[in-house]
């Protein structure tokens, strides 16, 4: 009787036949591959450049965008529940929010009105001079980071000084100039009188614009006890400055903070919110979102070239089947099953697509690595300094996977047609 055989026995031989078929049509195979090479390389390159662009924009925008401010406000609804102040407890709760990286409190002695906050002016004086409208802020060591301020002389207070409520102060440039003269270093170590308490000046801030230049910064305990008095409960805060883990997490952080605050203040109706959470991120987000959209959209356009390349494979495989109809008939006459013929043509298409994909990956990865090296060596000026094409596995895997899938689909249909040919029809084909 007729021997049956497992499909695996001859699979390797059919693969060899398929490869030989490709090799005997080198130009045709090469040109077919070219479409996929370009498609795959374009998708990977443009994704990489796009991600690099988004990264550069985020690096530039990050310090501005990642800034959340929480201030108390009066309920705008007449007859609503009384507003509660912002307290140390609120701060402790917000610190635990998963997307929050840093929380910095500020006590300015301000009073809360419906229109916002009015800072209390404090008179700063030395034995020889006076500055009448200083604005005192009690805060923690994270202040410089969240406010993006820098010192022109001296140091900021330490964690230990913060905890102890040391009577030390960092002053704005206007105050330093008015009280100690134009050289900021002259202010260091000097004594400063605020109302009735004495402080030692340990640092002077760089100018940041009129509003911030009359500030006096000190540990929160020192401000509460030395300048403003304990106040109601002694645990009230004027403002919280928060940084999220990253710019992308600002939205989530804002959501979490709002939820925590409502819980802390037992607010069920958002209309009665007695606080306000503001973030610059949502404004900057429109811009970064647009850049991200472009970065995602460009590879999508490149993907079209991948599809075009796939149609090229389909076209060539269909021509190849028609071209070799007699060959298919001969193979069937000498014992090839439909499955064997189908495997042969499918393997040809997948090999073309796979090799095209691999070459595309190699070219694009090479170009990306080259671009990274060039950018790193050039040192980079301005915007280019933070531009770095991203080499990540996901777009490579997707582009290569898609090219293989295209090979499977574009090869599968012609292969199926070839397998279905009746041997006598195929042998008779001219």
């Amino acid at each position: 009787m007729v021997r049956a055989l497992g499909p695996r026995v001859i699979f390797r031989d059919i693969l060899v036949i398929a490869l030989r078929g490709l090799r005997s049509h080198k130009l045709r195979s090469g040109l077919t591959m070219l479409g996929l090479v370009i498609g795959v390389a374009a998708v990977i390159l443009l994704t990489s450049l796009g991600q690099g662009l988004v990264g550069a924009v985020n690096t530039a925008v990050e310090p501005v965008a990642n800034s959340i401010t929480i201030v108390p406000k009066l309920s705008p609804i007449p007859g609503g529940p009384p507003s509660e102040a912002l307290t140390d407890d609120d701060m402790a709760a917000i610190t635990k929010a998963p997307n929050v990286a840093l929380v910095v409190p500020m006590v300015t002695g301000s009073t809360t009105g419906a229109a916002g906050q009015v800072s209390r002016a404090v008179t700063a004086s030395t034995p020889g001079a006076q500055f009448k409208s200083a604005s005192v802020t009690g805060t923690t060591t994270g202040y410089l980071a969240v406010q993006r301020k820098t010192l022109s002389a001296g140091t900021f207070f330490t964690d230990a000084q913060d905890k102890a409520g040391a009577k030390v102060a960092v002053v704005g440039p206007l105050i330093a100039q008015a009280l100690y003269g134009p050289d900021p270093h002259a202010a260091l170590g000097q004594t400063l009188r605020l109302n009735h308490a004495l402080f030692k000046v340990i640092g002077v801030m760089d100018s940041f614009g009129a509003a911030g230049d009359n500030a006096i910064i000190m540990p929160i305990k020192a401000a509460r006890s030395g300048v403003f008095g304990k106040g109601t409960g002694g645990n009230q805060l004027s403002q919280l400055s928060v940084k999220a883990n990253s710019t992308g997490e600002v939205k989530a952080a804002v959501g979490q903070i709002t939820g925590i605050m409502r819980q802390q203040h037992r607010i069920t109706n958002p209309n009665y919110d007695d606080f306000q959470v503001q973030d610059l991120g949502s404004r900057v987000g429109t811009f970064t979102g647009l850049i991200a959209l472009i970065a995602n959209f460009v590879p999508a356009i490149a993907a079209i070239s991948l599809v075009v390349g796939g149609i090229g494979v389909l076209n060539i495989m269909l021509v190849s089947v028609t071209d070799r109809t007699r060959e298919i008939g001969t193979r069937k006459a000498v014992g090839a099953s439909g499955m064997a013929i189908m495997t042969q043509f499918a393997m040809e298409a997948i090999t073309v697509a796979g090799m095209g994909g691999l070459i595309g990956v190699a070219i694009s990865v090479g170009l990306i690595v080259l671009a990274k090296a060039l950018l790193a060596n050039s040192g980079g000026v301005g915007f280019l300094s933070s531009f770095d094409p991203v080499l990540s596995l996901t777009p490579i895997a997707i582009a290569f996977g898609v090219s293989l899938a295209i090979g499977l689909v574009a090869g599968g249909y012609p292969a199926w047609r070839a397998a279905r040919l009746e041997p006598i029809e195929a042998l008779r084909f001219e």
Partner: protein
Amino acid sequence: MIRLEGITKSFQMAEGPMTVLHGIDMTVQAGEMVAIMGPSGSGKSTLMNMLGCLDVPSTGRYLLDGTDVTKLSKKQLSRVRGQKIGFVFQSFNLIPRTDALRNVELPLVYNGVRDRRSKARAALERVGLGDRLRHVPSELSGGQKQRVAIARALINDPSIILADEPTGALDSKSTVEIMELFTELNAAGCTIVIITHEEEVAEYCTRRIWLRDGRVVRDDQAHDRWARLNAVSA
């Protein structure tokens, strides 16, 4: 051994069914060398396709080595072709750009046979092409191409070699060579069925069957013919 019982074949044409074979009964014993002759349109190509399991009859039974192949699936038919039948075509039908060895190996590939190279070389040597193993079809003459095709038909040690006008594309010198090769193979035990309309080809065969309008009209057993040939020469 081949046995056909009441084989008919009809094709569905635009103007209605057309019957090409009207009940063929025929037996080919192992070791015979049969010529199937007839004018064009007599149904000999259709009969050839039936014998080669390339097509199935509309009615009737076809026993090949005791198996009724009309009941087999397409996949089983392809296995039967690969293991029991060797084809030789008028236009050679070698795979282009593929050397003689690989062409001859082909049936072994689809049969999952190992050690193909030495078998293919032996088959090519048997048809006298031991020095042309690595030549591709475009480098071979018509007669050489047909020898490669015959080596390919031989390689699976088939029950029957079917040759469809094997000398139709050859000059008279090559024709003689090919027919002498067939005769040698037949003498060595191969069963051969040749479809031809050429008398000089049929002369080499031990038996001749004439078809006309889809029916067997004459079946010359060898001894009749040899007796007659002897009488003529005497």
